[in-house]
């Protein structure tokens, strides 16, 4: 009747993997950020699944903290993207190579 916890974990892992795939294969900075958001969401789903599984609300608190940190990260990251775009005229990560030794 109830859904086994492993299904939820599988979904979370697939989302995390898709995020990794986005980061490894795409070069548009904004799509990279979307990949990071997907990974964070996969982690959140894991937190909530285990929270439900153990009957403990601490996972909810962790997921709350992750959501707030994701909001801050998105704001800062997109501001940096804006600055880089003004500087370089492109959002391709391969164009931003000033720090490459």
């Amino acid at each position: 009747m109830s859904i086994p916890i492993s299904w939820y974990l599988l979904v979370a892992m697939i989302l995390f993997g898709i995020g990794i795939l986005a980061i490894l294969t795409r070069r548009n900075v904004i799509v990279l950020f979307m990949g990071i958001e997907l990974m964070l969401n996969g982690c959140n789903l894991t937190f909530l699944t285990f929270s439900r599984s153990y009957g403990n609300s601490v996972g909810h608190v962790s997921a709350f903290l992750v959501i707030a940190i994701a909001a801050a990260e998105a704001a800062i990251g997109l501001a940096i993207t804006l600055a880089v775009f003004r500087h370089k005229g492109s959002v391709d990560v391969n164009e931003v190579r000033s720090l490459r030794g």
Partner: protein
Amino acid sequence: MEKVLFILFAGGAILSAVAVILPVIAPTPVHSALALVVTFLCLAGLYALLAAHVLAVLQVLVYAGAIMVLFLFVIMLLNLGQERTGPPRRATSRVLTSALAIALILLLTGQIFGALGSSVGFKSNPAVTNPGTGPDQCVATCLTREMGDHPRDKARKACQEECWESFGSLRSVGRLLFSEYLVPFELLSILLLIALPGALILAKKNLELPGTPEGQPSEGNES
């Protein structure tokens, strides 16, 4: 019913997440962002299935609302109608990176399922079957309050059922957040306070980066 909803939400989340990253389905970042909104909404449904009602609402408000608006705003501010990236990278490197990512997923899957065993289930209202389970503090107080003999068993059961009904509610999460996890919560507010002026300063139009030529016209027009 629960299974149907799970398959609906999980399938929707995974399919739209694939649509986010595949250039064939989402040729522009705007398409990716819209697919990502669908992913977040499906995930909110999954959270609700996991009895995390507060987190489901927060997911819709913060992720699908605030963060995606930020993404779309930046995409449109940068006028990224078509991707301004260089020529597509070689097929070999694309295949190699994809294989790497899939190997990573398989490794994670093997690790987690090896550690868990595939038969781990949810504690579905364990008050009925086994009162000793559930490390939740609420349930624990139920156990200590009524060290009861037979007639009190019913009261204890009712208390535990109440605990499980309030699981994931705003009251239980908020109580934990403002008592035991107060310090991380306050640190988080400081982080957001720092992020706000940080984002403003970074996104300023004439940010003086070292090495910026003087008087370079900025390219992001805000139409």
